[in-house]
């Protein structure tokens, strides 16, 4: 079994936070019983956590830290309860055996204890329950209370089958984030994406979750927020990152075939770096828009080249790089009636998608991109229709 060094490094970083955790821990542990400490020691040993990932990774936000603490607290309480149960059972198993000659105490259930335990036990359990609920409630309020700060950064997170779209609503830029195949991501396979979700530290961020097709869920353990992306509805969460770093998560709601291939990678950077990044993205966007609307007639080769790149990133997850699809779930485009027949119909299904299937509308791509993809599909893999679709055709078809 090979071990992933990259991961180890991230989890250990930065030491100060982890150290703080341990300190927290030992403070609380003093108040619990000795056995609790022993077992807890095994559970919480920092070394184990870093090596094998047996507990949450160190939080990257204050609220996440509180969530982490409540998790540890309930785990400690339940461990102690479990030990109590084990203690009584094993004591009894040992001493109250027939083979030891123990005579059954037929009046046990008629004793004072037998008559009143139905009150005593629930009251004790209620006490523990309320402790847990009380602590949890305080944290819960913070998690739920999306702040209404002035300079909050709104990020709309849209789940797609099977990629993520991040819209920075205040900056008008958008990031499409897809998993990277094993060839390129190596050890980080299924934990790495092509375009990361870049976020600044020290600023409150509001995530607006929604979905374009089926349910997905946004989950980055270091932020400790998980929220479902529901098509047609918008749910909210918030976070404020307190350290820089790269945090990896995954889609956490079954969304069909490639549910396992929807990683989320948050790159937490300083506000200055973030500002630079935003400017870069804006520039790229302007350039792309200019290219698309430059009323130019494109040659077959140009479109084919562009089309291939776009097709391989956006369409190949379902229709496959070779165009053969994965029937019956995803039809082949190679030799399909649609890709070799009427251009209008072909454009229509790409722009509008097909309701009730995984084929989503791709109308948000610009005219050039759609033209390129459709041209590519009509000529690649021996489809050889010879059709060249221009951006102007797309504009008309919309």
């Amino acid at each position: 079994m090979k071990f992933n060094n990259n991961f180890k490094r991230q989890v250990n970083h930065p030491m100060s936070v982890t150290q703080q955790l341990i300190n927290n821990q030992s403070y609380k542990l003093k108040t619990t019983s000795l056995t609790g400490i022993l077992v807890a020691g095994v559970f919480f040993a920092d070394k184990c956590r870093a090596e094998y990932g047996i507990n949450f990774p160190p939080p990257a936000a204050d609220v996440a830290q509180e969530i982490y603490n409540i998790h540890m607290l309930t785990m400690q309480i339940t461990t102690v309860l479990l030990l109590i149960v084990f203690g009584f059972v094993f004591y009894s198993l040992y001493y109250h055996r027939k083979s030891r000659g123990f005579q059954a105490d037929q009046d046990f259930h008629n004793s004072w204890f037998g008559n009143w335990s139905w009150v005593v036990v629930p009251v004790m359990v209620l006490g523990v329950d309320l402790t847990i609920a009380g602590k949890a409630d305080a944290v819960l309020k913070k998690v739920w209370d999306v702040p209404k700060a002035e300079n909050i950064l709104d990020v709309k997170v849209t789940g797609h089958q099977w990629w993520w779209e991040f819209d920075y609503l205040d900056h008008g830029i958008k990031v499409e984030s897809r998993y990277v195949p094993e060839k390129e991501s190596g050890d980080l396979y299924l934990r790495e994406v092509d375009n990361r979700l870049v976020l600044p530290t020290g600023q409150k961020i509001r995530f607006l979750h929604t979905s374009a097709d089926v349910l997905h869920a946004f989950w980055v353990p270091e932020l400790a927020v998980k929220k479902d992306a529901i098509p047609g509805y918008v749910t909210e969460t918030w976070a404020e990152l307190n350290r820089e770093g790269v945090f990896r998560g995954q889609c956490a709601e079954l969304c069909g075939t490639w549910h396992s291939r929807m990683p989320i990678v948050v790159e937490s950077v300083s506000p200055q770096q973030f500002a630079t990044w935003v400017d870069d993205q804006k520039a790229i966007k302007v350039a792309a828009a200019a290219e698309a609307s430059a009323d130019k007639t494109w040659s077959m080769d140009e479109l084919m080249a562009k089309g291939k790149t776009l097709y391989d990133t956006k369409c190949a997850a379902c229709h496959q790089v070779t165009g053969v699809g994965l029937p019956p779930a995803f039809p082949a485009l190679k030799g399909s009636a649609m890709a070799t027949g009427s251009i209008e119909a072909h454009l229509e299904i790409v722009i509008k998608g097909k309701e009730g299937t995984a084929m989503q509308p791709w109308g948000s791509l610009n005219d050039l991109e759609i033209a390129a993809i459709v041209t590519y599909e009509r000529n690649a893999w021996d489809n050889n229709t010879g059709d060249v679709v221009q951006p102007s055709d797309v504009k008309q078809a919309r």
Partner: protein
Amino acid sequence: MSAKEHSGDYFIPDPSPWPIIGMFSLLITLFGGALAMNGVSLGSYLVVAGLLMFFYLLYGWFRDVIKENLSDCYNRQVDTSFRMGMFWFIASEVFFFLSFFGALYYIRNIALPWLGGDGYLGVTNEILYHGFENAWPSHGPGELGGDFLPMGAWGIPAINTLILLTSGATITWAHWGLKLDNQKQLVNGLIATIALGVFFVILQAYEYGHAYQELNLTLETGAYGSTFYMLTGFHGFHVTMGAVMLMAILGRSMKSHFSAHNHFAFEAVAWYWHFVDVVWLGLFVFVYWL
């Protein structure tokens, strides 16, 4: 009936083929149904075959029960078992309807306000549906099914309410007749009830036609169309079943199967009919009126 001698007082029926026929009929019907819904033509034939088998089973099963009853196999305890069984069956039906009423409640009072910008997920409106306002009846922000008119409460639905309420009275009247051993009153009461039930179904069918043709209110009309047809449709189905059961009871009454003391079947059907009645009141208030 050999059963009586070997089972003490409580009647244990002989081995019976009906359950297993029931199994096959259900299997064939639903297998066919699944195929038919996906455009496999064999499916519809299977559905018909399965249903025929199902009715044969009902006929055979109840024929046995009637025979046993007439040959005095059932003691009081058996009768109680039947009554309790029917009672809890109706209880489960209540929860079946509750799931549809629950859906209506959820959509009207939770989901649509969110879509319209109120409540906890109100931000939905701001991000996805600028300008959509919550109102009922609604076919949602996507305006599914196109423009439509809702179904008014005070036309046919009000008449139907009256019909069902009256039918509740007529079946009670029939029951009184039965208790007094007045067979004529029993039969007349049942005939009146059945007539009212059939009339109800006809009016309901007419109403559906009206909705489809003139109001453009269809199954596709968003949440309103969905809940409207689901609730009224399932209720209509239950009325139809109830009417069929009433007809069976009528046949038996005409053959004087019931006596003032032994008429579980009659009571079971009467309970069922009242249940259907009460559900209708819920429908009238929540689907048509409010």
